[in-house]
């Protein structure tokens, strides 16, 4: 932070030398600054340690035991047995596949639709504030309420979706058992996820688009660029960091899908729609197997961590590009 401030024009490649130069001559003033900086960081770090680090360490500890939930009762140490169990458990792997499927259908749709809505709502149009609110409304609605509503929409007999597709439009020969089969149920869950999430990505994209200098658009227009070209060559590069941010958060959110699955299918029928968190929840809270449950959640953490690292690498601005 400091070195870049002292040499604002330096690129990332020059950073190490700049840092070693400033570290080479420490002054009392600088040491005091550093001390103050840590003092200001301390409360935030303490909170982080208490609410994030401690639960992670504790969860890892629990995952190595056949955990007795009663406080004070002795738990048997089983080493990595809970992890081995997960890697040989077909339902765990199905939950991984379902979670990945959910993530893959919800994340790109939320980005594309969110960006589309943001571009449209960035333009001058009547009732713009109303539309912005309407698109955002699903985001602030309770997951429980919308999951129950969607369950009724997708019910086989008497559900709205089958009623439209079958009874009204005659597009399907018979009612689809949406929540009764793996991929139709996962699709229904994905549709809910997209519907609920588009407003969120829209708002972030909208804020980013409004930060793109108008002069750039005007200059491009003068050069003869049409709307699509201006979007591709001016807006998109300018909001690239925001796209990266939204993608990383959506992927994490996609892996954490729980409430909608718990309420719409509860992992059923026959564990066909289990996702990692519903399966973890069942092991811990229905079967009292907290060791196995935390092992699953720890594996989920590792997956999300690895994917986030890859994404941050992919999205990192190539050196020299501005």
């Amino acid at each position, binding site marked *: 932070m400091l070195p870049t401030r002292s040499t604002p024009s330096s690129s990332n490649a020059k950073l190490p030398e700049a840092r070693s130069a400033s570290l080479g001559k420490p002054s009392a003033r600088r040491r005091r600054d550093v001390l103050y900086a840590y003092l200001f960081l301390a409360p935030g770090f303490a909170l982080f340690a208490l609410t994030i680090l401690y639960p992670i360490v504790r969860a890892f500890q629990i995952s190595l035991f056949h955990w007795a*939930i*009663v*406080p004070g*009762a002795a738990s048997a140490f089983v080493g990595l047995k809970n992890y081995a169990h997960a890697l040989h458990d077909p339902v765990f792997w199905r939950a991984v596949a379902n979670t990945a499927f959910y993530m893959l259908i919800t994340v790109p749709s939320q980005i594309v639709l969110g960006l589309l809505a943001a571009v449209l709502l960035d333009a001058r149009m009547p009732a713009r504030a109303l539309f912005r609110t309407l698109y955002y409304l699903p985001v602030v609605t309770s997951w429980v309420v919308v999951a129950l509503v969607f*369950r009724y929409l*997708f*019910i*086989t*007999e*008497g559900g709205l979706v089958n009623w439209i597709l079958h009874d009204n439009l005659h597009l399907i020969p018979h009612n689809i*058992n*949406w*929540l*009764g089969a793996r991929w139709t*149920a996962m699709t229904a869950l994905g549709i809910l996820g997209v519907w609920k999430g588009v407003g969120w990505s829209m708002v972030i994209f909208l804020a980013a688009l409004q930060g793109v200098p108008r002069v750039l658009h005007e200059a491009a227009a003068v050069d003869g660029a049409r709307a699509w070209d201006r979007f591709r060559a001016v807006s998109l590069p300018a909001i690239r960091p925001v796209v990266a941010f939204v993608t990383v958060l959506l992927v994490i959110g996609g892996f954490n899908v729980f409430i909608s699955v718990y*309420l*719409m*299918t*509860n992992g*059923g*029928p*026959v*564990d066909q729609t289990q996702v990692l968190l519903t399966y973890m929840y*069942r092991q811990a*809270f*229905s*079967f*009292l197997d*907290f060791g196995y449950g935390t092992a699953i959640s720890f594996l989920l953490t590792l997956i999300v961590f690895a994917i986030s690292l890859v994404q941050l690498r992919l999205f990192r601005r190539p050196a020299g590009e501005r």
Partner: protein
Amino acid sequence: MRNGRLLKVLALAALAAGLVSTAAAQAKTTITFWSAYSSDGPEVKQLETVIIPAFEKAHPDITVKDVTIPYNDLHQKLITAVAGAQLPDLVRSDIIWVPELANLGVLAPLDTTMPDFKTLSDSVFSGPLATNAWKGHYYGLPLDTNTRIWVYDPATLSKLGMSGPPKTFAELKTMAAAAKRKGVFLYAEGGTGGWNILPWIWSGGGRLTNDTYTKASGYLDGPKSVAAVQMLVDLYKAGEMPNIIVNPNGGLGAYDGIFQGKYAATLDGPWMFAIFSSAHPDTKLAGSLVPAGPGGSVSVVGGEDIVLTQQSKHKQAALEFLRFMLSPFAQRQMAEAGQMPVLKSAEGWLPTIHAYYDTYLKQIATARPRTPTPKWPQIDQVLNTEIAKAFQGSETVQQALTHAAHQIDALLQ
């Protein structure tokens, strides 16, 4: 001057009154009682407006704080409370959770905690009492009992031109086919767990385990159990049962279907009558025994026990409320709300409260309990998952029940 004196006296009196009332408030004990009494029917209202006020009037030093939790969340809530040492004083627990909670060591054994345990345990039916036993002690007392009977809407049956409910497996098959031709499902069932399927296995002459609850292989996958489940699978595959049996979340629920006349019947407990009479007063339900198969008409015992937690700081006050809940007064009040009493003395007056109790009393005489083991939630999940495969057609009934029996064997070890 006089006024000043009067003021002083008044101030002192007010202070004294304040002190006395504070002391009284301090002497008052508050006990917490968790239950899953339903607010869809009259149960919660009966508890909060009749039973607790009557108890508090008789015991002015005790306040009862009742917390009602939806049934589907209560087990999770209890487990979380066990882990956090936050259990209430008393819990109205489903009978199938008592061995699990007792095994965790969080319940107080009532047979050694209550001096009058024998008097109370002698006054209740022995079947429900047995659900409180775990490793040589009694960890609760029964609070209400129930079983599942054939609950139907006579109006739907008469629209189908049928004079009465099916009495045997054979009648069930014929009537289900006839109902299908008129676009109605005769029988709706919302799952493939023990509560759903065991009445059919037992009525078909099959078994879940041996008598000592140590082995399922050779019982759950025996020919009679297979034949009973096969009958349901055949009905389902012929389009004569709705899909909620495989996928309870994805179809029209049994209550809604019966109300809408799309389903004629389901199996359920007495609360269904209470819920319908408050939610759909125009739908007059009727009940009959579970259709009889080669094993007779055998249903499954349900119900709740009242248990005292080890961590309760007010055990004596809590036990007072427990005794009150088993009194003829409280049992009768809850019977009016659709909860079957457990007192032996209730047999005489029970059918005079609601006519449907008569059928429940007949059914419960032959009903059987689910396997009393802390592993019941896992066993139930095995049944749910494996039997659903037979309905989906990914396995034959024999394969599904054999797989289930193997897994249950391991859980019973």
